């Protein structure tokens, strides 16, 4: 009885320790990913340093599934820059090019009109009701770099959430069943 009791105890303790170690390792991985993301936000000055292109309005330059690297500096917005902006009432940010810029002499505030390269008309129809111009606070960043195709992972996971759950489940299973 004593031996069995001891063995059971030792088995239980190993399991708990192993479980805790794996939980902490998982936590460390998730936390370091979060740290990297927040650091990117600081370095680039933009709330979302990387965005995925979701529509075809900037073709053939940017296709659906490409990712854009954004940066937001204090420099003024100028015509031709590809800006990412959000409109009050729409949650998905839009990536288009600034075609008109009017900068006030005294306050340095800007009025910006944008248009997608592949669209025939400018974006007035996309802005909020009665809004004719974008202002600096609408703009989240300027696109400075680009990688093709990498964003498809995000698009697939958003449009077919089943795949997201399968992926996370498989990863979880891999972590739990790995012995070392």
């Amino acid at each position: 009885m004593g031996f069995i009791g001891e063995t059971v105890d030792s088995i239980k303790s190993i399991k708990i320790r192993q479980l805790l170690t794996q939980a902490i390792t998982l936590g460390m991985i998730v936390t370091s990913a979060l740290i990297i993301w927040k650091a990117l936000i600081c370095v680039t000055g933009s709330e979302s340093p990387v965005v995925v292109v979701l529509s075809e309005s900037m073709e053939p330059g940017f296709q659906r599934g490409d990712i854009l690297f954004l940066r937001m500096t204090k420099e003024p917005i100028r015509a031709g820059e590809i800006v990412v902006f959000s409109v009050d009432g729409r949650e998905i940010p839009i990536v288009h090019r600034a075609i008109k810029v009017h900068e006030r002499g005294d306050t340095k505030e800007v009025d910006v009109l944008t248009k997608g390269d592949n669209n025939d008309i400018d974006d007035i129809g996309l802005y909020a009701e009665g809004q004719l111009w974008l202002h600096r606070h609408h703009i989240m960043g300027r696109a400075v770099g680009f990688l093709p195709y990498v964003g498809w992972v995000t698009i697939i996971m958003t449009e077919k959430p089943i795949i997201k759950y399968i992926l996370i489940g498989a990863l979880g299973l891999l972590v739990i069943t790995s012995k070392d």
Partner: protein
Amino acid sequence: MHSFGYRANALLTFAVTILAFICAIASFSDNFSNQTPSAQIQILNINWFQKQPHGNDEVSLTLNVTADLQSLFTWNTKQVFAFVAAEYETSKNALNQVSLWDAIIPEKEHAKFWIQISNKYRFIDQGHNLRGKDFNLTLHWHVMPKTGKMFADKIVMSGYRLPNAYR
């Protein structure tokens, strides 16, 4: 350490790292290209020049744009986006940039061109300051790469002037 899972994981990580590295190098190689673009813009005609009912001046122009942007294309270039903007200053605004025309140039062969167009986008001021206004016509280009950093530059051509009276 030798299971299929571990090997697949190591292979995938290595492949992705190498791919990222190659993309970075491709983008970096763009810094070494020697770029000598040239352009000329001529205003052929001021079609009309009115003050619109909402109080803002509007101009319609016909332009002749000649440009050679072939030297901007590198092996890592996907397309060049070129546009002509009218740039001027008013008493209220320190800078106004109004894009008049743009084009997407997908290949080097199409980058040397001569085109006569009337303005694709409306040239409207914020206010009625355009009579007798001196302005610059700037040809901007944005090079969109196959991977990596995008870069942009421009040629400023000055000396254009709008008429003193509406017509």
